[in-house]
């Protein structure tokens, strides 16, 4: 019994490694796209804003499973093929970019107008104002919602199961199909996910306290 548990744990942890890679890669891809979308929404001309907003709304309205199917099964129609792992990163990354753009947009808008005016009036350029005034505050405003986004992406990597990525849940399913002990194995999978999400949340909230500017803390309830 103990041997079975340890052997299963080894396989599940290998899956957890893939889950972490998927999560980190998707979040980074999402962040890069999201920064441009957010800048377009906050500082862009009306038609750039319109394109960015349409992109964001559409990606936020389509289930992640459908996005994965479009990238993995749909794009080969145009001769673009990805392996399951890459397809999962692209899908999760695109979807996350839509959510992350809203985080950055909100954070940029949360920096008060008066501070921007003050910075400009002491002779800072637009770029300097952004780098020294808006960005340092906006980055802090983003931490709490980004933790939520991290949890969402981490949990949704389990959906990459559907296109055949051998992440945590699929490794678990492989064990189930050879040993037939779904209750233990899926509970172990759930426990590993829980440790990852709960641990990160606790860690980040400590980090947040360390970097907080007194009087500027933000915490909200978001689906995450």
């Amino acid at each position, binding site marked *: 019994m103990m041997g079975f548990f340890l052997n299963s744990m080894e396989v599940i942890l290998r899956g957890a490694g893939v889950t972490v890679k998927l999560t980190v890669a998707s979040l980074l891809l999402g962040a890069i796209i999201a920064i441009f979308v957010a800048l377009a929404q906050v500082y862009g001309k009306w038609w750039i804003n319109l394109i960015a907003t349409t992109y964001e709304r559409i990606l936020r309205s389509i289930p992640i*499973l459908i996005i994965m199917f479009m990238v993995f*099964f749909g794009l080969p129609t145009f001769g673009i093929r990805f392996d399951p792992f890459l397809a999962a990163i692209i899908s999760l990354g695109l979807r996350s970019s839509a959510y992350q753009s809203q985080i950055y947009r909100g954070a940029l808008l949360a920096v008060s107008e008066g501070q921007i005016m003050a910075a400009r009036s002491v002779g800072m350029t637009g770029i300097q104002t952004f780098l020294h005034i808006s960005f340092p505050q906006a980055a802090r405003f983003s931490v709490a919602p980004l933790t939520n986004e991290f949890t969402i992406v981490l*949990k949704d990597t389990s959906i990459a199961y559907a296109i055949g990525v051998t992440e945590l*849940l699929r490794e678990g399913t492989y064990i189930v199909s050879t040993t037939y002990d779904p209750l233990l194995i899926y509970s172990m999978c759930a426990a590993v*996910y829980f440790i990852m999400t709960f641990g990160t949340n606790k860690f980040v909230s400590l980090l947040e306290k360390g970097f907080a500017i007194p009087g500027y803390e933000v915490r909200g309830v978001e689906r995450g």
Partner: protein
Amino acid sequence: MAEFIKVFFQAFPFLMSGLKFTMELAIISIIFGLGIGMLISTLRVYGGRISYTFSTAYVEIIRGTPLLVQLFIFYFSFPQIGIHLSPIVASIISFSLNSGAYQAEYIRGAIQSVEGGQMKAALSVGMTKWQSIRLVIMPQALRKVIPSWTNEFVYLVKYTSLAYLVGVPELTAQGEFVASRNFEFMNVFSGVAVVYLFVILAITWFFSSLEKKVKIPGV
């Protein structure tokens, strides 16, 4: 584009039969979830130490694990302890329990945003604690929760697509079924995406008009 329209209309009857299941799953689960959410949030805010611990553990565990794993536990693991659930029942149970935890968090936030003095006032005019919660706090909290509740409904509609993985013939499953026969994967899944998009726009519009309708001026 012409090709897309042709494929979309061929797939349309299948997608609509799938949409029926998608909406059934989402509506039943959001209602059960609302019940769970109201119960759990009340326990978390007004409960004693034991009920607080249990309800908090419930919320943290559900929010810390993926919905797909929860679904797999109900559908694939429960038969091991002698509970056999049909795909649709397993989906409804796991979606309701999942949504309940998130709704509990939204409602808890709303309850705490209702002024503390109102509870004292209600108790001082002779209401019981249960009456104060039911007649004074909840009606205000539920109004405040509508925007995040709309979000939750939108999330739930999107996540019902996971029911496809345990064999419920909902919208995504029907799309997969059509696409695996005519090999028009991009066109069919774009069509499915368009259907989800319309449903979600309709939901958002409906609830924002509901919010205006039930609004109490000044609160």
